[in-house]
Each structure stands twice: as structure tokens, then as C-alpha cells.
């Protein structure tokens, strides 16, 4: 019953507010995966870089560091202040690409309100989308990787106005599904 209520409430009020919360979750998840993999923060051993800026005893109230407040002690049941169920959740979002409407599957693994893994799945739905093969005379890079923008010296960033629309929609659905 609780789940149904949470789900229907979220669906009926999927408004600007919902989207904003969702973007915050998406941003936190990407940062969480990129920045926290393999680290186990404990109250007594802070990274040296953060020691100057925060007192170890204080739990930050902002969502910018969810791992610091959620990762203190492992417990069996979800603590009262945990917002989302632990586990892996999968949803499909859609968006409009230059080639038409497309879908994207998003799986999030949640652990104590922290996203520990993100995967996206191909959902080729557009019959006009072209498949490309390797037959071009220009340069080819077999594998490219992202570098953190704040570690780069750039004057500007060029991305897409469509960025993450489908990802955001799927994350929104997961949020309502996983809500405790």
C-alpha cells in the first residue's frame, strides 16, 4: 500500500519540482560513482583534503555528500532516515533525438540512499536510425574516456540541449519505485 501511494503521488505530480529533485539525484549519482568508488568513509579517517573544511563529528545536511551521512554504520534494516530502498532498479525513459523518439533503459543500484552503480541499455526503437560500420577514411579512436571538467582548462563547453532527458525520466521512475 505504501509503495502504491508513493508511486501514484509521484506520477500525478511529475512537475517542475519533481524534475528538479530528479536532476539532483542524477547529478549526485554520477558524482557518487565517479568520486566514491572503492572508498569506505569512516568518521575517524577523513581524506586529508577535506579535513580543513569540515568537522568530522558533523553530519552534513546537504545532499552534496550523501555518503558521509549514510555510510557511518552498517545496519540490517533501513534506518529511519533512509529515503530509498536498497537494491537494483531498472526503468525506461524516452526522449526526442534528431532521428525521432528514442528510449533508454537505466539501471541504478541504490545502497543507503547512495547510487553505487549506473548502467544504461540500448533500446533501438527508431526504424530510420542508421547502423554504422567501420568504413571511413578519417581518424578512428578505439576508446575514448571522459575527464572531469573541473580538472581541465577549457574556456567553454559544447554539449547538447537534449542532454539526459531520457535518463532523467527513467531516474524519476526509479525514484518513485524505490521510495520507502
Amino acid at each position, binding site marked *: 500500500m505504501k509503495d502504491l501511494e508513493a508511486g501514484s503521488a509521484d506520477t500525478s505530480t511529475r512537475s517542475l519540482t519533481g524534475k528538479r529533485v530528479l536532476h539532483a539525484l542524477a547529478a549526485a549519482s554520477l558524482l557518487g560513482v565517479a568520486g566514491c568508488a572503492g572508498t569506505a568513509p569512516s568518521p575517524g579517517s577523513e581524506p586529508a583534503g577535506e579535513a580543513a573544511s569540515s568537522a568530522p563529528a558533523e553530519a552534513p545536511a546537504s545532499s552534496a555528500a550523501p555518503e558521509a551521512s549514510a555510510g557511518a554504520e552498517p545496519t540490517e534494516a533501513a534506518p529511519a532516515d533512509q529515503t530509498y530502498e536498497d537494491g537494483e532498479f531498472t526503468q525506461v525513459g524516452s*526522449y*526526442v533525438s534528431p532521428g*525521432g523518439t528514442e528510449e533508454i533503459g537505466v539501471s541504478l543500484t541504490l545502497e543507503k540512499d547512495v547510487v553505487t552503480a549506473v548502467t544504461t541499455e540500448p533500446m533501438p526503437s527508431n526504424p530510420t536510425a542508421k547502423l554504422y560500420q567501420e568504413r571511413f577514411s578519417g581518424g578512428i579512436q578505439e576508446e575514448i574516456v571522459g575527464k572531469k571538467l573541473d580538472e581541465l582548462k577549457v574556456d567553454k563547453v559544447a554539449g547538447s540541449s537534449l542532454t539526459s532527458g531520457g535518463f532523467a525520466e527513467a531516474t524519476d521512475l526509479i525514484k518513485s519505485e524505490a521510495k520507502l
Partner: protein
Amino acid sequence: MAVGGSFVFEAIGTRWQIDTAAPLEPEVRAAIAGLIENYDALYSRFRPDSAVAALTAGGGRLELPAHGAALGRLYRRLYRLTDGSMSPLVGSVLEHSGYDAHYSFTPKGPPAPARAWDATLDWEGSVVTAAGPVTLDVGAAGKGQLVDLVGGLLTGAGHTEFLVDASGDMLHSGTTALTVGLEHPYDPTRAIGTVQLHGRALCASASNRRSWGDGLHHVVDARTGTSVSTVVATWVLAADTMTADALATALFLAEPDVLAGEFTFDFVQVFSDGHARFSPTLNGALFTP
């Protein structure tokens, strides 16, 4: 360029930032706002009072400003080079998919192809004629052309050093090159590479279609054994923003060498399996593991 002034505003659903060496005069700012408003009033599919809304309602004859001729020519060339995949008649397909003036996001049925250009629309010079209702959509090149028009206004007002940035569609003028990060298709906090932008335009397009880089989602062509994947993001550098904007979309629909036969440009394409290809003359770098 030492930035002397930044003019930041929202228009046509996008954040604009115009950096200039000398601060923009109030009358130039007003002229820019007026220019954008007029362009929007002409082409917006989302305004019931726009000129193209009249075509949608019942067809007819629409006389565009002089810049409409260049837009029509560009669309016609790309319509031919993409075998009809890129078309100003894509509007009916988008609306069919729920991307309509009411943002219903409710598909009206299975995907339907756009109507053939010649049977529907005559775009001769700056005059558009349609015998019946037609949804004209210039979204793949219109924003770029608007950036060019704003750049022309700046030049006309005596500004020689500027960057017009309409959320990723940008036009640069001046003596100092800019380093521009290429935003990671799935992570706005990261860049996959950088390019040098100097005295020309840079536009980006992305579909965020699917995961890449994890090596698990390769599709292999059974006949050739080679990896097959789809384009998820493109960047194009060209002399003008309208062309760069249109080619960034066209690179989802046509091979680069087909387009290179008729246009001069540099490009980066990123594919769903995490590999990239780029023009041999690209002045930039993509990051490798």
C-alpha cells in the same frame, strides 16, 4: 580575448551567453532581443501566432526574410544528401511522436514517415508555398542561423572580438582561439576531448541513445564480424553556425564523406560502443584511457 562584457539571457528555450571584448551597448542588446523575437515569431512551432503556424493550419504562401533563402537551400541539399532523412517536414513526425505544441509526449500511433518534399512543399528563394496544411520545422539549422544573425549584428555594431554561445551552438570571432570542452554524452561533469575554436562556428548534437564505453553492448555484424554501433553524439566546426548546426544533425543520418563532398567542415562522432571518429584536420584532442 579578454572578456569585457557578458550578456546572458534566456530565449527560444535556451540559455544564451554573448561574451564581447567591449561591453555591449544597451541599444545593441535591444537589437539582439528584437532579432531573436522576430525569428521566433517566424519559425516557432510552439506559438499559435507564428508564421509557420499559419502553414500548419491551412498551407498557403509564406514570404520569408532574405535569410530564409539560405536556410531553404541548405535544407534542400541535406535532404538530397541524406536521402530524405533530414527534412523540414520532420515536424509532422515529431508531432506524431507527441513532441507537439502542447508537449503532450503522447504518441499518436506507430512511427510515421515524413511526407516527401516535392509533393508537399515548394521553397523557392525566400518564398515557401504549400497547397495544404504542412508543419515546417527548421529546428536542425534554425538555431544556428539565428546565432549567425546575432553575430552579424555584433559585427555591424563594430564588435570584432566575440563569442555567441546558444547552449552549445557557438560562433567565435577574434584573434585568440578558445579551447572548448566536448561534453561527455552521458555525464555533464566530464569532457571527452577538447577542440580549438578560432574564427568559426561549433555546434553539438546528441541523442544520448545508449550506453557506451563499458564494452558489453557491442553489436556484431554476423557477415563481417565487425562491430556495429550507432552515433550518440556529434560536433561540427564550420565557417558559419547554420551549416555547423545542420551538419551536426546530418551526421546522425549520413556518412561524413558523403557530406564532405559538398561542405567544408571538421567533425567528431561518438558511437554507442564508446569509440569515436573525427576529421583528419581536426584541431583538437580526444581523451584515451
